[in-house]
């Protein structure tokens, strides 16, 4: 979606694309839809070797990235991942890694962070209260209990929830937010794997029933972490949006090509205005989506004061138009898109699910109004 890349970034894009084509092309993704994890054996370690989970982590903490622009590099990989509907944790791993890196981690947390960078363990992000009004999510609360905390509540829609060993949980504590790093195997914590619309991703419903966690599991400052959670939300949204853009781009190109090849009534269907104009409108939405997604990536990278607003604009725009485009492509493919063997539905599923994650478009629009004090 970026119009120009540095040579480092171009190299990163190429190696990412080569890795995906070799290790987990769409046919492989398709073959894994009924598997428990959705990812091929050894995929995460290999991806870690390419630096996928270290992008937002300083070198001294075991991380590093190619260009010095971690967010842009991560967005670039996310986009490539979207092009082939890659499974497995990427957004969540990077959000958690960035969060830990920035939090002034304890020794144990630092060790975990390094393990994340190496792809040896999986952690996912449980926004809990951070997007509580974005869905039915009742939120999670943290109550002090002696020197420990007790977590209660639920998160209905945890991305990569079934793959994770660790959860970065955002919980409400009084008027404030706290974050905890919690091992999945903890008494009172249940992770229920869910079937889902997007068969190339894995989600879980996570319930906390008075889960007792020690003080050492607190990430960053105790309380007062609205600012860092905001940053995490921005990262999650911007990476998820980049992934959607990648998926939209491939789907649109498939459809464009089909419209030039498929004939009806003695001519290519793309020569009919009905098809032509749908394609033009979709192309406009997509090009505009790339423009706003790039703006969002840059704003988050630069930690611009209005980054949150631009991210919400990108998430809302791409969330809505992504579905428009997926549905429009379906219309142009016609019946063939209705068959299991055709890839269209895999793209439709991913794009739709991403639109709903980390706040639906409406929620982001409401957020924009609040950011302006309305």
């Amino acid at each position, binding site marked *: 979606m970026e119009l120009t890349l540095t040579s480092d970034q171009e190299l990163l894009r190429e190696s990412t694309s080569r890795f995906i084509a070799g290790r987990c092309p769409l046919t492989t993704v398709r073959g894994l839809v009924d598997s428990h994890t959705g990812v091929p054996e050894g995929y995460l370690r290999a991806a870690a070797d390419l630096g996928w989970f270290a992008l937002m982590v300083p070198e001294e903490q075991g991380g590093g990235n190619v260009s010095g622009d971690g967010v842009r590099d991560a967005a670039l990989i996310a986009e490539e991942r979207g092009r082939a509907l890659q499974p497995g944790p990427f957004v969540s791993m990077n959000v958690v890694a960035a969060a830990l890196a920035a939090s002034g981690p304890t020794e144990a947390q630092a060790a975990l962070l390094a393990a994340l960078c190496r792809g040896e363990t999986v952690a996912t992000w449980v926004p809990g209260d951070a997007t509580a009004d974005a869905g039915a999510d009742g939120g999670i609360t943290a109550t002090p209990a002696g020197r420990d905390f007790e977590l209660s509540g639920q998160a209905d829609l945890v991305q990569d929830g079934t793959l994770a060993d660790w959860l970065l949980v955002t919980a409400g504590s009084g008027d404030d937010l706290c974050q905890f790093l919690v091992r999945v195997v903890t008494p009172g914590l249940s992770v229920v794997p869910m079937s889902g619309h997007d068969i190339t991703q894995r989600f879980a419903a996570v319930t906390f029933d008075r889960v007792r966690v020690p003080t050492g599991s607190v990430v960053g400052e105790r309380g007062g972490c609205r600012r860092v959670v905001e940053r995490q939300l921005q990262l999650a949204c911007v990476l998820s949006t980049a992934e959607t853009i990648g998926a939209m781009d491939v789907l649109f190109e498939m459809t464009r090509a089909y419209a030039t090849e498929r004939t*009806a009534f003695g001519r290519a269907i793309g020569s009919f205005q009905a098809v032509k104009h749908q394609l033009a409108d979709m192309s406009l939405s997509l090009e505009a989506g790339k423009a706003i997604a790039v703006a969002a990536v840059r704003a988050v990278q630069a930690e611009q004061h209005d980054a949150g607003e631009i991210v919400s604009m990108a998430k809302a725009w791409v969330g809505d138009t992504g579905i428009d485009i997926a549905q429009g492509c379906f219309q142009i493919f016609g019946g063939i898109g209705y068959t299991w063997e055709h890839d269209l539905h895999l793209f439709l599923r991913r794009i739709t699910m991403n639109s709903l994650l980390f706040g639906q478009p409406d929620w982001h629009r409401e957020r924009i109004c609040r950011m302006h004090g309305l």
Partner: protein
Amino acid sequence: MGALDGRSDASSDGVDDYRRRARAWLTTNLPPLEGAAQRPTSEDLTPEVMAANRALQRKLFEAGYAGISWPKEYGGHGLSSAHEGAFLDEASAFAMPDFGALSATTFDICVPTMLTHGAPEFLRRFIPKVLSGDALVCQFFSEPSSGSDLAGARTRATRDGDQWILNGQKVWSTLAHLADWGLCLTRTDWDVPKHRGLTWFAVPCDAPGLTIRPIRQINETAEFCEDFFDDVVVPDTDRIGALNEGWAVTQTMLVLERGAGRRDAAIPPSGPGPMPEELVSLAQRAGRLADPLTRQRLARVHTTDFVGRVLTARIAEMGRLGELNPGLASYVKLFRGTYTPIRARLAVEIGGGPAMIWEGGDAKRAATSLAYLNGRSASIAGGTNEMQRNGIAERALGMPREPSFDAHRPFNEVVREAQNPKGTP
């Protein structure tokens, strides 16, 4: 308005008597319906279910309640549509034979088409099998290379003495894997414009060389099939309609397919009734019943549902009033094709992310996702929205027809050129 529709005739006398007798027979012979009738899906139609329904159909047949309005000479009873209507009214409280979508393709589409165009010799032989439940009929109509362009069929029928050899591929044949026969559109002359070289045949589904394969759909069901014709032999006596005049047969079938003559469409609905229950509970589960945006979506769906029903009744009434024009049926189809996907998307927006995941096997919670995946079939199957818009614009609004690139040239030339396009005509 009875005088206007011109369909009442002498044979409609005695409908009340007929109704009374039918009710008596039904009460004694058919099990009462439990709950509302729901069309069985392909998954519901197990061999046992199919067998049970065939038995029910045979029961009707033997009691003289099959083919009530079909001609006597073919095994029907030659009564008026009023008699048939009376029987169906009474029967609605009972478990009638139901072959899912095959009921419609057999009794509402294919056989009425055959009755219009088939030779008496064929009909005498064939129709009784239908009436007794031994011949369920599907359509071998669409092809991989001709979707919207139905007249562009490329399945080839080659004459060989008294018989024809069929080669080619069909697709989207609804429930063909459960049918006994299929009505098949073929090309019998490649040297004339496309509408002038088509011929229809009735083909047994177990004919040697015919392979029928259910297509796995994105909603993980398999209601449609693809069908491979590999030197399938069909006697000329199973031809439906005149040689090379298959387009006229097609027209009849298309009109029937869009529901012409369904008795109940013109009755205006009494009122909107309750809000769509599944969406209200979706909103409730999402904790959004008080959310003004969700409420707008609910009211939108509820309104569109009712508007669709009053529109359907209006269009049917226009048909009854003699204003029916082939473009009119497209209004109902386009309304459905436009608002079904929107409705499915609004449901997703109402329920949000949590509505799109569910514990394995929780079919009720998977429904939002399935409806979303299915939504677009309303805008594609049976004629895309684009084709309906053409139909409305050209046939109801009098816009000039789309200039044709193929309708006036020999079909083999069109096929050649479509593969090597030259640009402007």
